[in-house]
């Protein structure tokens, strides 16, 4: 197990390097510099600025400098928010985004697995068809469509919940964004669970359990659930990526002060270092999470040999 973990960890290093290199060289390929303004600066001032941001060095040195910075957790200064470094902006936004995304994944897991299991137990019956149709709708309605609809219904029409804002992460502020973010994932997870649960329920050891007269509840909870959850576990990696991506637009719609909002602002203002920093940070997060998911999978599935 330890050797397997180490090997997987070493395998993540080239991925990280490619991630950082891609982001870095894409940014440097950009036409127009960060100091291009409507009024052009005097030449010597611009030269000073370029020297201050090390833009006068050869490209490979800049890359080395950036790489070194990332390893130390320093993503450089923000070009737009002059008084902040990118790391400070990420550190401000991350707890908020984390709380939003974490709640969404948790909610998606609970509801998705429950709905999927119920649909599998009632295969090809009305409940099954209902769950599958609702989940197909959930997959098909993008969260940036769902979010305004939720606001329209629950905030503007019924006035039960605030239409936006974060309020320091109060529950009432979190309900709508978390639901909007979780819905597509609920849909995917319930479909996944249904499929694998149906397969598991057909297997021999379940038939044996039934023959021994165990109740459906015991069979599902004690015997079928663990193997049926394996595909869901491996889906957690892509799910995290999807939730992170989705939170960009959800934070924008609900005015949540997370990383996603900085990212969109940075993208619209061409704040290169900020955008690059967020891409690299989220990339690292996804890689780390995939690593954890792989470990969890190897631990849960007796069929995986980690030698």
């Amino acid at each position: 197990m330890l050797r397997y973990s180490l090997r997987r960890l070493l395998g993540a290093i080239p991925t990280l390097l490619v991630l950082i290199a891609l982001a870095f060289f894409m940014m440097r390929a950009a036409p127009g510099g960060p100091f291009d303004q409507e009024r052009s600066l005097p030449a010597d001032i611009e030269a000073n600025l370029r020297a201050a941001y090390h833009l006068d060095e050869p490209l490979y040195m800049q890359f080395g400098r950036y790489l070194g910075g990332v390893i130390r957790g320093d993503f450089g200064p923000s070009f737009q928010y002059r008084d902040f470094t990118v790391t400070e902006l990420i550190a401000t936004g991350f707890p908020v985004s984390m709380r939003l995304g974490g709640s969404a994944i948790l909610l998606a897991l609970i509801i998705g697995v429950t709905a999927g299991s119920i649909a599998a137990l009632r295969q090809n019956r009305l409940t099954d068809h209902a769950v599958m149709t609702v989940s197909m709708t959930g997959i098909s309605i993008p969260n940036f469509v769902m979010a305004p609809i939720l606001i329209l219904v629950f905030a503007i029409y019924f006035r039960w919940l605030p239409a936006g804002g974060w309020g320091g992460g109060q529950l009432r502020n979190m309900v709508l964004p978390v639901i909007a973010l979780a819905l597509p994932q609920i849909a995917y997870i319930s479909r996944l669970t249904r499929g694998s649960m149906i397969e598991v329920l057909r297997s021999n050891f379940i038939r044996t359990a039934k023959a021994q007269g165990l109740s459906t509840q015991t069979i599902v909870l004690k015997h079928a659930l663990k193997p049926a959850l394996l595909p869901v576990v491996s889906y957690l990696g892509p799910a995290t990526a999807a939730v992170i991506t989705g939170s960009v637009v959800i934070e924008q719609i609900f005015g949540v002060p997370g990383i996603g909002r900085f990212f969109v602002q940075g993208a619209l203002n061409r704040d290169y270092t900020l955008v690059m920093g967020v891409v690299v940070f989220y990339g690292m997060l996804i890689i780390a999470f995939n690593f954890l998911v792989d470990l969890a999978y190897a631990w849960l599935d007796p069929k995986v040999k980690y030698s």
Partner: protein
Amino acid sequence: MTIEVAAHTPVPEQVEGRSLWIDAWRTLRKNRAAIVAAAILLSMTLLVLVGPFFSPYAYDFTDWGNTSIGPSLSTGHVFGTDTLGRDLFVRTLYGGRISLLVGLVATVVSLLIGVAYGATAGYLGGRIDNAMMRIVDILYAMPFMFFVILLMVIFGRNIVLIFVAIGAINWLDMARIVRGQTLSLKHKEFVEAAEALGVSTFALIRRHIVPNLLGVVAVYVTLTIPQVILVESFLSFLGLGVQEPMTSWGALVKEGAEEMESAPWMLLFPAVFLATTLFCFNFLGDGLRDALDPKDR
């Protein structure tokens, strides 16, 4: 002796060959949801292509006398107008043209790259396959949407770039699926027979490998189109996609979301069009998968 044995073997009946496609069509026809979805998609495409010719308004015409009016037949604005008085019916259809076009073009780009890459890796096998798939694994871990946004930031918002960028990043799944399929095909008897008969590698790939890949590819294409449309809408929603006065469903939803308190129809119509299209593609893809996947028979 031997002659007698031969005489006892029954003469084989002339059986009409059933190709994968005829089989698939028979299964698909029974799947009412998939057929309805296909019909809706066809009508949607037709409406989006032809509809604007029957409207008296251009997509960028501003009717200053009728800004933000609701849907009504008497004004001629059947879907209402936006805050600038532009006819929402025409704009929704134009947005649909862009969205469907992005879906199609980007999917074709990802199809070409993915099939070429996957088939090569799977057919060559060995160390080359390992290296090629390792690259796919690495790219797989990249935050795809963020790179598309990065591209938009760097190179400006350009519609051709959107097509290519989305397609160029979306080929990874396709490559994986095609590679897996090729690998399993390579060791099938009919491929070995063709090899033994001296068929050239190129002819072998073209005659025996590619036709057998088409089923899987067809399913995957149907499922890629909605993904791509979604990505484009996502970008447009953030203001990083199609630029004014041109529009797409994502951009219209964004405008609608901003005005939803005063003009809910601005959100409603594009949202319904977008969701219906995505819904139908997903249903059709599901139906195709059931019909074309021989494992499920």
